[in-house]
């Protein structure tokens, strides 16, 4: 029996001690007519057979080692130092539970504290929680936090260029609440200033947005606060190695997709929801927080803290229902940031910038192609001379995924391709992409 160490002889001894004849006797409380159904599943298989089956399934996918990817759109192929999986897969981290018993969980607790510290520095916030499910749910909870901040302020401004799946998650999370979700175009500060009523709860800025564009955030915090709202910035954490932090722009809450920081693509999950805020709002922040304290002998240690915000203490009055989060992903990001360090993260961000701008320049020089203007970091929209979907299909034959045809989310945008270039791409990757695009439309 896989993973069950009780031998038949031991089982009989144990049943004897309990005074029953069979395992079945232990289930007398279950309604008899429904007890012991036959499960129409295959019988158990050996490890060898199961791994063979899963290896076959995995090979039915295209993956980032066999294709050249210029696909981002919320899931990014950044460099991951070998140290990250080697350390994060240690059983002592992998198979521990939530650190509710601090004396035997100092490893996890200190790592989360270090994660909180580094991500707070990166985002420019006072406090960062121990994680959310992903960037989209972190942003949805940030909006909810803003909505609850002021009773009569119910207007939520989100950028038209926010990731379409994030918009859908926000809509789901807010479906039960009285509020108006309104999309704005152009500068976020103008959107706040242009409001007729004084009912702003939250303004969200995407830094950058789904199309890779970096908005001008100057004056936004002031304009949002003037209307009585909270300023939420959803950021690309790699970009924050180079560009001003949301905190420096006056954000009240920051969210980000932390997958880029040392986590695999994993076909979309597990990812890492980053969420941080200011000291003024920290007692309303959802999610776990680790704090520093001392034991009776004065030794420094770490504990889960401000638990009066959480479901296991406050039940229906908790700020969120979140319990299990993405602890292991936060650990991976912690190790990643330690490995990259002050200079490494900056270098990665600069490489993204140079590679992406070189790719954009070369693609724009192709006949029939153009690049949407505007400030960008690592992702940009290409207008294609033939439908982007058909163009992409041609490149798949050459083991190149040239980007995301925007028609996936915007049916009318048939000739737009969202291209992502990171520090992992080489000059020849980029030149091969350009060459393949040229040939595809000839």
């Amino acid at each position: 029996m896989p993973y069950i160490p009780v031998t038949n002889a031991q089982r009989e001894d144990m049943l004897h001690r309990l005074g029953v004849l069979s395992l079945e006797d232990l289930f007398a409380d279950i309604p008899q007519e429904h007890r012991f159904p036959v499960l129409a599943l295959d019988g158990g298989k050996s490890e060898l057979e199961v791994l063979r089956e899963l290896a076959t399934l995995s090979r039915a996918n295209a993956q980032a080692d066999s294709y050249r990817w210029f696909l981002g759109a919320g899931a990014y192929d950044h460099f991951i130092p070998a140290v990250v999986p080697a350390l994060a897969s240690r059983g002592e981290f992998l198979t521990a539970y939530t650190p509710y018993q601090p004396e035997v969980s100092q490893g996890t607790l200190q790592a989360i504290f270090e994660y909180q510290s580094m991500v707070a520095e990166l985002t420019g916030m006072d406090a960062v929680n121990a994680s959310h499910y992903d960037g989209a749910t972190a942003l949805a909870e940030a909006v909810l936090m803003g909505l609850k901040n002021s009773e009569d302020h119910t207007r939520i401004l989100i950028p038209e260029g926010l990731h379409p799946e994030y918009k859908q998650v926000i809509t789901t999370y807010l479906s039960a609440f009285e509020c108006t979700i309104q999309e704005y175009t152009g500068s976020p500060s103008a959107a706040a200033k242009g409001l007729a009523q004084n009912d702003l709860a939250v303004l969200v800025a995407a830094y950058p947005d789904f199309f890779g564009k970096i908005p001008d955030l100057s004056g936004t915090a002031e304009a949002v606060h003037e209307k009585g709202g909270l300023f939420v910035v959803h950021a690309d954490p790699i970009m924050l190695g180079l560009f001003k932090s949301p905190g420096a722009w006056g954000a009240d809450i920051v969210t980000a997709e932390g997958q880029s920081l040392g986590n695999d693509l994993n076909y979309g999950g597990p990812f890492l929801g980053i969420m941080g805020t200011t000291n003024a709002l920290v007692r309303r922040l959802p999610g776990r927080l680790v704090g520093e304290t001392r034991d009776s002998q004065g030794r420094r240690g770490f504990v889960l803290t401000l638990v009066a915000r959480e479901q296991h203490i406050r039940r229906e009055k908790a700020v969120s229902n979140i319990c299990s989060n993405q602890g292991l992903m936060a650990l991976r990001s912690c190790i990643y940031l330690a490995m990259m360090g002050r200079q490494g993260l900056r270098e990665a961000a600069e490489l993204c910038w140079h590679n992406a701008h070189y790719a954009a320049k070369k693609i724009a020089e192709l006949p029939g192609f153009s690049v949407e203007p505007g400030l960008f970091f690592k992702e940009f929209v290409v207008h294609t001379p033939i439908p982007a979907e058909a163009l992409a299909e041609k490149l798949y034959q050459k083991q190149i995924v040239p980007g995301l045809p925007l028609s996936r989310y915007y049916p009318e945008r048939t000739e737009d391709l969202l291209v992502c270039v990171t520090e992992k791409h080489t000059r020849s990757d980029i030149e091969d992409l350009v060459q393949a695009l040229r040939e595809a439309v000839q």
Partner: protein
Amino acid sequence: MMQNLEGGPTMGQQLVPLLQEESVPGRRAVQLPSPSVPETPLPEALLREAPKLPEVDELTVVRHFTRLSQMNFSIDGQFYPLGSCTMKYNPKMNEEAASYAGFRRAHPLAPESLSQGSLALLHGLQEALQEITGFKAVSLQPAAGAHGELTGVLIIRAWHVSRGDTKRKRILIPDSAHGTNPATCTMAGLIAETIPSDGTGAVDLEALRAACSGEQAETIAGLMITNPSTLGLFERNIKEIIAIVHRAGGLVYGDGANMNALVGIVKPADLGFDVMHLNLHKTFSTPHGGGGPGAGAVGVTGALAEFLPGPVAVKTTEGFSFRMPSQSIGRVKAFYGNFAVLVRAYAYIRRLGSDGLRRVAEYSVLNANYIRSLVAEKYPAVYGEGRWNMHEFVASPELGNGIHTLDIAKRLIDYGFHPPTIYFPLIVKEALMVEPTETESPETLEAFAKALLAIADEAQNNPDLVKSAPHNTPVGRLDETTAARKPILCYKG
């Protein structure tokens, strides 16, 4: 481990400095290549000073995290009988499967034609979970148990609204429930209402009938219930409970936290449940990761299938594809769920098969009752008199001399065991909740029982030893009050 009753290291004793304290200006680990393309000028006015991350070399990072890991208890290292958390062995085979490049390096927005392996796996897991639970449809999108609860309660709400039934706002929740249940109701804009338990720890049927009768019936959205309950007892009146709620027009949500006791034993849908989440990180052996990631798959009856969050994987004539259910509550997460967790759960189900899954429940129940019997004299199970517990039991220890459950828990650490869940469920005074799981041997269970009984003796003969535990950990009991009153949440230099 037994020789360390009075002190002496059981784990990495020495505290580890913070990474930030190990930082030396100019030191580094990762070095990236120089740009191979012509450089583009940076927008200087928008830039920052490089973030002040630690400056450390690679070996320092490796030692730092290795030493931190040694300060953890884990399933790989210790018996971890944490009630309600199902800390079973996490097979290494699952890690291998999840590490295959075709899964680990697959992009979620790759075209379906290049993602057939992932889609086939998602579809296969949906079908397996449908078979195990009896539900007609499953969504794998929720990322954790509480996320599954939110999904399920939003489905219940959406179903009522779709029928024009907008007055139904009350969700009934037994007083033994996890805190996530009432917190979920608030997040879904509904009102949590507590139903007391009766003298046997079961749902008080009279109180439930009263909450569902007369005009009150018209405001019932549903009931959230954990079965087996958090007392580790199967709710014997479950069919009647469900019938009462159904008669009032409400739907019944099953919290699947305790499904480990029921796989292959009973299909929840057969009992009448309408919606239920499964914690794949409990029942289906995926590692807890120090607090996640989990996966909270949600199953529903045929009537609710089109309300599921999407997309869900479907089989077509050409292979596999994604589809958004027609009345979906929407997305609850970007992309498709915690896919790499789903790979592990699928590998586990394939390994165990139908017989192996039933053995999981049988032996988890056997092990729980075995410990219960070994410690019955000093730690009698509350309720459940004359009945068998399911996968866990709850004691309410009274060892005297001012010894609290917290002291017992901390003293168990000295014996090399992770403490059980304590002070939960809230309806049991000084609760001590023990869930051994099926992957532990009788030798381990007996050693644990022996330690619990030894602590009962110590409570009589040397209570201070118990009250001052743990003695062999890198830190002793920590000052949580000051931590909350004057929070230090970041390194301040």
